[in-house]
Every structure is written in C-alpha cells, then in structure tokens.
C-alpha cells in the first residue's frame, strides 16, 4: 500500500501545478458564481403606490433577513436606471401585497433573488390569511414565540424566515463548488487505476507479492488524502485569508467533507468498474459529475427541488447528504449527533459503491 501511495505522490510532485489548478478552480468558481460573498447582491426596492414610503419600509425590513442580498430603498426612477445600466441586477417593485421583479437580463442572481422574494411574500400572505380567519391581530407574535420554543429547532427555524438570519446562499454555493472541484479531482486520481491497468503497471503489481487489498487501499487512500488536502487548503483560504463565511466548526465540516470524499471515491470506483480505458472514464465521469450538484439542489435555495424523482436520484449521491449536513452545521449550529444520519448515509453509499466497483474491476480481469 505504501509503495502504491509513494508512486502516486511522486507523480503528483512532478506536477504540482495540477493540484494548484484545482485549488484555484474552487476559488475562482466561487468568486465568479457566488459573486463575492462578503459583498451581498444589491437589490433595489421601490414602490409606486400612494403610501410608498410606508410600503417600502415594511417590505424592506421583511426582505432584509438574508445576508446574501442587501435590499435598499430607492426611487422608482433610480431603480429602473440602475437596472438598465447594469449597476444592479434586480429591482423589486412592491405594492401592499404583491411585487414585480425588474430586470434587464436573465442573470443567475435573478432567480436567487426571485426565490427569496417569493418566499417572503408567500409567508406574509399566509400570516394575513390567518389573521383574517381568526380575527386575531396577534397571530404573528404568537407564532413567533411558539417557534422560538418549538421542539425541533432546525425545522422551526426553517419555517420562519426571520429565524434564519444567517442563511447565506453564497456560503452554500461555496461548498457546492468546493465539492464539485473535489469530485473532479478524485475522479482523475481514481482513474489512475484504469491508467495503470492499461499501461501494464497493474499487472506488474499482480505478479509481485503485494496484496490486492494493499493495491486498492493504496490508490483509495492516496486519492482520499490528496483530495482532502485540496479541500482543506481551499476552506482555510476562504476562512482565514479571504474571510468568507464557512462556519465556525471547521472540524465538523471537514469530517463531513471526508465522508463525502470517501463516498465519491467509491462512486468513481464503481464507474471505473464499467470502463475499459481511461478515455472512456473521461467521457463518462465529467458528464455525470456536474449533474450531481444540479439534482442535489446545491446551486439553489434550499427546498427549491421538490420533484420526488429528482430528490430520490439526489439521495443516491453523497452530495445532497453532505450539503444538508454542512448547511445545518454552518447555519444552525448542528453538532455531530445532528449530522450523524447524513454521515451514515454517505458511508452506506460509499461501502456499497466500493464493493460493487471493485467486484466489477476484478471481473474484468478474466
């Protein structure tokens, strides 16, 4: 096992640029798509009703609960002008009970803003309906005080927009990209098994006294360590150098990440079991991987994906479990016990995929 790891390490030492490139990719993707987490997306709020200041003030307060977006009251003219000139991506024209989004082009931020605004307005509509039905003006405060003492805190906070002041889509995207890049990296490393089988190095190992378990664990452990190294470097850079929000409990986050990395290595091994050449792996793996965060909803506000088929598919991959666990640690201060279920699911996926994968690889040999 040590020999295998040594050889892999020597190869990577010759090519350190490769790992640096992956680290850079995580950071660049996050900056590009998460739009700089410390500067939340600016959204203009305005109203053209008669009692505009009052309406603006009310929605301004309700909308500004999420550190991903900074809602600011401006005049209708300025809002439209800024959107037209690309100073801001989105403006929201609010009325007493409804809203209208003002945009110039379909930027990725638009749908995030829209999702957020829609949620706030829907929730307010529900409160209004309750108040009307019960004739009770205090529904809101009762609801809030109930939620504060609710038996399941995480869910309670999820129900109440005001209970998640910390939620930050940027942070979610950051982890989504870190994991995405990690998946590519570990895939390339796992593909070394196929590379070595095709080149004949694998056969040399078979003929030597080194054990099969030693061979497999050499590749797997090396892939695991190098991918974790990349993840750790990226997260430390984000947290301490770039001061991005990645949560306070870095230890637990790395534990979750390590389960994720192991689990994905197993899935890469499973794919390796189906391919004959490294090229086949390259044609399958990179087309599957980007779909995983998509179906897992890692790029969208939590709860956006509700299609049961998609949700089922997402659950087969470790990413949705890892994202769930990380988000609850970062935003809801979840502890090890709270994320245990996610960890076990990832472990289960990992063990099954690894077993099937190695079995298929061994069968190919005959």
């Amino acid at each position: 096992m040590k020999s295998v790891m040594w050889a892999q390490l020597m190869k990577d030492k010759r090519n350190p640029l490769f790992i640096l490139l992956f680290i850079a990719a995580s950071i660049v993707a996050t900056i590009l798509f998460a739009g700089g987490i410390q500067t939340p997306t600016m959204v203009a709020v305005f109203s053209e009703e008669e009692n505009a200041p009052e309406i603006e003030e009310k929605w301004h307060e309700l909308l500004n609960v999420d550190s991903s977006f900074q809602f600011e009251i401006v005049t209708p003219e300025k809002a439209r002008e800024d959107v037209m000139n690309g100073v801001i991506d989105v403006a929201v024209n609010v009325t007493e009970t409804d809203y209208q989004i003002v945009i110039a082009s379909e930027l990725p931020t638009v749908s995030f803003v829209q999702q957020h605004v829609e949620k706030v307005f829907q929730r307010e509509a529900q409160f209004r309906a309750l108040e009307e039905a019960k004739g009770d003006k205090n529904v809101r405060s009762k609801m809030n005080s109930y939620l504060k003492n609710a038996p399941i805190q995480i869910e309670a906070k999820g129900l109440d927009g005001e209970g998640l002041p910390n939620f930050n889509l940027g942070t979610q995207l950051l982890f989504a990209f870190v994991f995405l890049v990690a998946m590519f990296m570990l895939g390339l490393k796992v593909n070394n098994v196929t590379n070595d089988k095709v080149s004949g190095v694998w056969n040399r190992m078979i003929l030597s006294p080194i054990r099969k378990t030693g061979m497999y664990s050499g590749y797997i452990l090396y892939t695991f360590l190098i991918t974790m190294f990349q993840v750790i470097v990226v997260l430390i850079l984000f947290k301490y150098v770039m001061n991005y929000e990645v949560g306070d409990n870095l230890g637990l986050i790395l534990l979750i990440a390590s389960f994720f990395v192991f689990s994905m290595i197993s899935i890469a091994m499973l794919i390796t079991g189906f391919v004959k050449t490294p090229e086949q792996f390259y044609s399958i793996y990179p087309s599957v991987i980007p779909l995983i965060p998509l179906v897992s909803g890692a790029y969208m506000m939590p709860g956006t994906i509700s299609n049961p088929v998609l949700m089922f598919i997402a659950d087969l991959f470790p990413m949705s479990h890892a994202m769930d666990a990380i988000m609850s640690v970062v935003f809801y201060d979840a502890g090890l016990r709270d994320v245990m279920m996610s960890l076990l699911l990832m472990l289960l996926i990992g063990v099954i995929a690894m077993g099937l994968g190695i079995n298929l690889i061994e069968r190919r040999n005959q």
Partner: protein
Amino acid sequence: MLETIKLSKSFKGKKAVQDVNLYLDSGESVGLLGPNGAGKSTTISMISSLIKPTAGEIKLNGVNIINNPEQIRRILGVVPQELALYEALSAYENLKFFGSIYKIRGNELDKSIQRALEIVGLQDRQKDLVKTFSGGMKRRVNIAAALLHHPKILILDEPTVGIDPQSRNHILETVRMLNKNEGTTVMYTSHYMEEVEQLCDRLYIMDHGEIIASGTKGELLSILSTEDTIKVQLSKMDDRFVTQVKSIEGVRKVEAANTNLKIIAKKGINLVSELVYLSEQHHIQLINFHTENPSLEDVFLHLTGRTLRD
C-alpha cells in the same frame, strides 16, 4: 522445469490459444515465434498467472500451479509487450517502485536497482524522466523492472517492437548475457524471425493459437530439406505468368512482391527451363535468378502459406 499441457484460452467463445504444449528446461533460451494475433501474449499471460486458462495445465517442477500461482510468481520476471512504466517518474524512481512492491527494501533495493540499470546500460541516465527517453531506452527500463527480484525465469514479450536497430542489438545482447552468464532461463517471443534465430536454443512456431512446429533451428529447417527456395527478379509482374508458374509440376508455393517472385519447389526439379520458356511467352525478362538457403521465415511460409509479417 516449466511445462504447459493442452493449454487453451477462449475469449467469449473465440479461441485465442488452443492445446499448447510447451516446456522450458532450466537454463534454456526458448523462442516463441508467430505473427501478430497468433496467441503469444495470451500464452505468456497464462504461464505468468495473469489470466486463467479455459483448459489445460501449467506445471512447475511437476506441480500444477494454476490455482496457487505464488510459487511461479516468485521466480518469474515478466517483461510485458507494453511499456508498463510511469512516464512521469525517473528510471530510478520507477525501479524503486517496482522493487518495493517485491518487498525489497533499503540498501538491498538500491543494489538491485543499480545492478538492473547496469545490465540494461542505463546507469548514467537513471535520474532522467522516462518520458524523455527514446523508445529503445524505455524498452530497456521495461526490462530492468523485471530483473529487480533476480528471477530464475525471464519471459520477454516482443521486447524490441518499434525501436531502432542499435537498441535492438543492445537488448538482444542483454538477454543473451542474462541467459549465458547469469544462467537465467529465457522465454522470448517475437514476430522477428532473425531475433529468435540468433538468441534461442529452441523455438516454437505459433499461428492461429496453435503450435505448428517446434524444435531447434536445425530441426525446423530440416522440414524444408525436401524443398528449394528460388528467388527470381522479373522485368515486370504479370498475374497470368504467376498463375502459370504456380501450376508447374513440383512448385509448392509462389509469393509475388513488386517484380520479385519467391518460389518454393520440390528439391531437384529443373525450374530454370520452365521459367525461361514461360517468361518468353509473356515477354518478360528474367533479370536475376538464384536458389536460397531456406530460413525460418521459409519454414513459416511452408507451414502456413503466409509470411510472418502478413
């Protein structure tokens, strides 16, 4: 020491190797000659325990080793047909890796590496990356990697494919030295007749998965003792002429290439007058005409009707 009995292998019902019987005595140098696709690599893979035979036995000192390959693996060095190396690593690092998987450690490992490098003549280039090497040098590292654990039997699968004549001679010399001076038993496969002819005491000729002839060079050539090989150069080629040459009594095979004919005919028949007569009829001149000593190439042609490089 090592023998195979009715060794066969099918891939998805297609026969790659069929009923191969061969043996290797200690200290021998044995060649396995055959065109591409003959089944040489498959045979070697079975002997070295990399793939399981569909049928047949492999015996090491009389003991069937198909289900417990550890014994043969310990004494076997295999130089695969492909370059089984890490191109991104130096020659030394490659050998360090391949030595360490044989559990050779520390000082002993370094000594083994230097010895292997010396044998293949690459000691002064050991720090260089394999990807900067020429084809011939890569082939030499490929051989060195199989020598680290001092194998008693060395199996080489087409170790000279695609390299320059100088490197080729170097490799042949290396193998000869290992066999003659170090007493290593050698099994050498090739589709180059000259190599096997030069290097091996004994050889097997393989085609379409079967051994079609075996023996020392002399024994194999005696197959042709009843035949002459005649080479003719013509002023131009004419298919009808060739057809008529083929139908001359006593002519067994005719090979045409450009304006040259290679004719294998029963010993002692008088071809000259027949050829002169036919060439006049077709207005062809005979530019050159001579009888050749038969080579192993001719043995192959005789046995299969094809040349080795078809």
